[in-house]
């Protein structure tokens, strides 16, 4: 099976400051992979480079074996079936919940399909239906995360990029979010997640990477990675 995503030797710098250096990773269709790393390790930079929001200095990003994402603009990348759940949600706060969902389906020109997608999202997140005409900024953190996920799912992506989906949420909500990611993956959507919540992320992922100061220092099946000393030390609070 050919890789859905293959990142090779990717380096990004902000001015003279390197953010990520020679990062290589890949994803098979249907997988959940997680990138663990501390603040400032370069996790968000990887996601933004995949989305074309940050330009790579060197390296390639192959999607589906044929598209080099480093050569495409963000709106073209989305059309290949890549959707984003940004760090801190980044909803359009001055738009209503419904408008946020419609924007998630921006590339769909068939209005009937858009309506169907919205109905499907309301079925999955009944709370959002109640709140559909409220401004997104007025929602609670957990509800906003639902909007952010629904906004990304409505375009039926093949690859979902999730940037710290659990950050700033109550522990019970965090559990719901991880359950949701599992359900999304069971629907056949591949998920590349960046997380600091290592324990829950590793329980969910098929494969994990450990990113330190812009470089991947460990890589392997999630079960193996969680036993590594370095991961234990940094993320799982000492000896197993």
């Amino acid at each position, binding site marked *: 099976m050919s890789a859905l995503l293959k990142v090779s030797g990717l380096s990004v710098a902000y001015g003279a400051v390197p953010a990520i250096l020679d990062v290589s990773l890949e994803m098979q269709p249907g997988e959940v992979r997680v990138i663990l790393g501390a603040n400032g390790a370069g996790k968000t930079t990887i996601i933004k480079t995949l*989305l*074309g*929001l940050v330009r790579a200095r060197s390296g390639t990003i192959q999607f589906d074996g044929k598209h080099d994402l480093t050569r495409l*603009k*963000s*709106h073209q*990348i*989305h*059309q290949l079936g890549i*959707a*984003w759940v*940004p760090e801190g949600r*980044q909803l*359009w*706060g*001055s*738009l209503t919940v419904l*408008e946020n969902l*419609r*924007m*998630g389906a*921006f*590339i769909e020109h068939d209005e009937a399909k858009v309506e169907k997608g919205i109905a499907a999202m309301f079925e999955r997140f009944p709370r959002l239906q109640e709140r559909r005409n409220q401004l997104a900024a007025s929602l609670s953190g957990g509800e906003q995360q639902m909007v952010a996920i629904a*906004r990304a799912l409505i*375009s039926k992506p093949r690859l979902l990029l999730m940037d710290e989906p659990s950050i700033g949420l109550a522990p019970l909500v965090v559990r719901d979010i991880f359950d949701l990611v599992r359900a999304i993956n069971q629907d056949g959507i591949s998920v590349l997640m960046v997380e600091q919540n290592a324990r829950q992320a590793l329980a969910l992922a098929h494969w994990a990477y450990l990113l330190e100061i812009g470089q991947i220092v460990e890589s392997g099946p999630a079960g193996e990675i969680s036993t590594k000393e370095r991961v234990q030390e940094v993320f799982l609070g000492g000896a197993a």
Partner: protein
Amino acid sequence: MDIFLQQIMNGAVIGSTYAVVAVGFALVFIVLRVVNFAHPEIFMLGMFSGLWTALHISDNLAVVLVAGAIGAGLGGLVLERVVIRPLHGRNMLMTLLATLGVSIILQNGMAIITGPDPVPYPTIIPNMSVPLGPVSLTARQLVNFAACAILLITASYYVRGTKYGRATRAVAERPDVAAAFGVNVSLISLITVVFASLMAGIAAVSVGLLYGSAWAFVGLLYGLKAFIILLVAGNRYFEGVVFVAIALGIIEALITGYVSSGMRDVVTFTLLIGVLYFRPNGVFGSYNA
């Protein structure tokens, strides 16, 4: 009492043009984060496009209005692609200075072609007055007001009620997220500048017809007023901008009617400074750069 009402009506007519220019200015600012100092000169280009069309091609009112839209729209298109787009992502002051430069070139370029004085507009709308209860407006005022009202309603509908309008608001708030959800941000920017320019061009022709002249430096007047309106209203709410624009027109008309036209700008600027002292983000709030 009748003079009072009459001046309010006259002021509302003037204010409606201020509103069209100010809304275009605000749209470009909140979507592109660009202070487009050339916007009033785009208005001026529309005014002369209408004038030349009326003189040389057709003096049909609809044709002349459309000509104003086309002239201004083309001006906006070139401005966005040649001046604003290449400076995208640079310091905001760069586009501010670049568009200011364009505005000076357009003002003086037009003055070289048409002379520094106002040029008479052909009479397309008969000079008759239309009684409206205790007051009356001229047919030219009614055309000016109707054109501006239709433009503002169209702008409101576009931004609130259409898919591209929604995307425009999304770009205004979070351009990166909009791009990642499939919005061609560069295209939205272009559409926004052209749309603001089309509006300005149509309003400009109706102003040319109202006062019976076109002038190379007309942008100075309307640009300054639009800028004041945005500082007072803030750029966040469309209705806020329109409200302040109409209010400014009415205040000016009342001062002109009861005090003197010389006091008009004194009062306007005093109000501006007063409002900014207490509400630095404008009365209705602003998106900042």
